[in-house]
């Protein structure tokens, strides 16, 4: 069996004069969590819905589990689970009934109890959908997508609108999916989500992929500069020729990531030698958000 679960070549999609997706290529390998990261309107949902078979593409090649999703073949749908960005569930069925109803459409199923366990709804199994909270309904969305034991799961912004606690819980659900061997295609506009969950990230902005790679090193993130900040008592000499004094009397020093340890050692050594205290001492590694803002910020308005 091929290890390429999704293969996209030069995908384009236009709505009238607007080209929402302007020629993107990427692939998803079996067993990985692949995240598509980008601001609203970047083309994430358009791309996802083309892969899911809801939209047709204007140009390019798309293969999902060896099928062309535009043909909407039943044999493909039997192997894919979809969590749409916003979608409803019949309000009058219980959690168990809902999962069983959807499971019945698939040739292979996961046991209902197990699915309920994976998404953490065990205590709500006999509760009707209209009595569930928004977060619980979202977990039921995932449970429904899992019911047919799919090889590939699409999660389109699974945690948008969640409070921080619910997001953490949702992430654990996704981590559980990974542990049961699913391939996950995730879209999100949260950096921390991509950082925490994804093996590989593409950043999309204005319908184009602007960066691709593992979250830790995407767009040269590991080469970006580390920021060191601290305060010193008034009248202290500058400890290092590279420091900059910020308007709020904080000193800032930006160094290459691979110089971080040495620089910190020099600084603290200098402070000890001179009997100063480095107040509010802070080391900030470049975050995915820094990378993202740099990438998508440059794209906005072009």
């Amino acid at each position, binding site marked *: 069996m091929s290890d390429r679960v999704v293969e996209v070549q030069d995908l384009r999609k236009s709505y009238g004069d607007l080209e929402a997706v302007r020629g993107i290529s990427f692939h998803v390998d079996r067993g990985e969590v692949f995240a598509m990261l980008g601001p609203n309107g970047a083309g994430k949902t358009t791309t996802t819905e083309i892969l899911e078979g809801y939209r047709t593409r204007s140009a390019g090649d798309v293969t999902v589990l060896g099928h062309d999703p535009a043909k909407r073949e039943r044999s493909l749908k039997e192997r894919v689970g979809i969590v749409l960005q916003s979608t409803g*569930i019949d309000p009058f069925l219980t959690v168990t009934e809902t999962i069983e109803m959807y499971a019945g459409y698939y040739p292979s199923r996961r046991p209902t109890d197990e699915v309920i366990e994976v998404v953490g709804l065990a205590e709500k199994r006999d509760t009707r959908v209209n009595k569930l909270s928004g977060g619980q309904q979202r977990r039921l969305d995932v449970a429904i997508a899992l019911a047919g034991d799919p090889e590939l799961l699409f999660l389109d912004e699974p945690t948008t609108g969640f409070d921080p606690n619910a997001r953490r819980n949702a992430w654990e659900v996704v981590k559980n999916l990974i542990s049961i061997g699913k391939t996950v295609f995730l879209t999100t506009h949260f950096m921390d989500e991509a950082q925490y969950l994804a093996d590989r990230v593409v950043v999309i902005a204005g319908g184009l992929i602007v960066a691709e790679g593992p979250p830790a090193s995407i767009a040269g993130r590991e080469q970006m500069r580390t920021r060191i900040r601290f305060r010193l008592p008034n009248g202290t000499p500058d400890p290092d020729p590279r420091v900059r004094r910020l308007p709020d009397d904080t000193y800032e020093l930006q160094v290459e990531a691979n110089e971080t340890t040495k620089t910190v050692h020099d600084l603290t050594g200098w402070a000890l030698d001179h009997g100063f205290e480095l107040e509010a001492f802070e080391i900030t590694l470049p975050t995915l958000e820094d990378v993202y803002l740099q990438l998508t910020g440059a794209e906005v308005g072009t």
Partner: protein
Amino acid sequence: MNDVALTARQVRYTNRAFWRNPQAAFFTFAFPLMFLVIFTALLGGGTVIRNGLEFNQSTYYVASMSAFAIITACYTNLAISVTFQRDAGILKRTRGTPLPGYDYLTARVTHAIGIAVLLVVICSAFGAAFYNASIPSGVSLFRTIVVVLVGAGSFAALGLALTGAIPNADAAPPVVNATILPLLFISGVFIPIGDQAPKWVDVVGNIFPVRHLVDAFLGAYYGKPFFDFSWTDVGVVALWGVVGLVVAARTFSWEPRR
């Protein structure tokens, strides 16, 4: 599972959800019976003259409310609830599963027809118990069953066709009522259309399927000498059903229209 088994299974889930939605179930069942009681109480003592024959209005209403029940269950209810499901994204989700779309819709229509049959049985039993209406038997029974099934199927097709013209769930009840209420009034569902009715009411009523469904019901239910059954009425209803099916096939949307 094959399509028949999948559809049957879906009918069971649809039915379970239907009965757990108290408002929908209540109005679907309460309206025809309530109207039957009200109209019979207000007008039941009178007579109506159709084709030169005189009718007792209470027996008339048993038949016309059965027609109304079919329209409520298959047209009004189906159009509104399918639009709600479309707007809520339930249809879109279903579309992403291996369940074929026609299995899903067949299940919805089958369930609506089942509710219609149940309503007609209740109206008939009610009519027999309280209004001396006869329960059809023999050829009348056969004709009544045909009328119920053709009527329910056709109005379900028209209900699905109408969803294509409804922009969102909020608009569903007014749009559905705007299309059906005037027809219910000019087609003799609420007010019997006698021979003395204005000509235009007769002409307009005969174009649309509601009048033909009512007449088919009267004919099937009572037959000669009260009201002559005509297969033409059944044919016109069926033709509208086919038109509904064609329109639905072209305009039905699985995704919210936002």
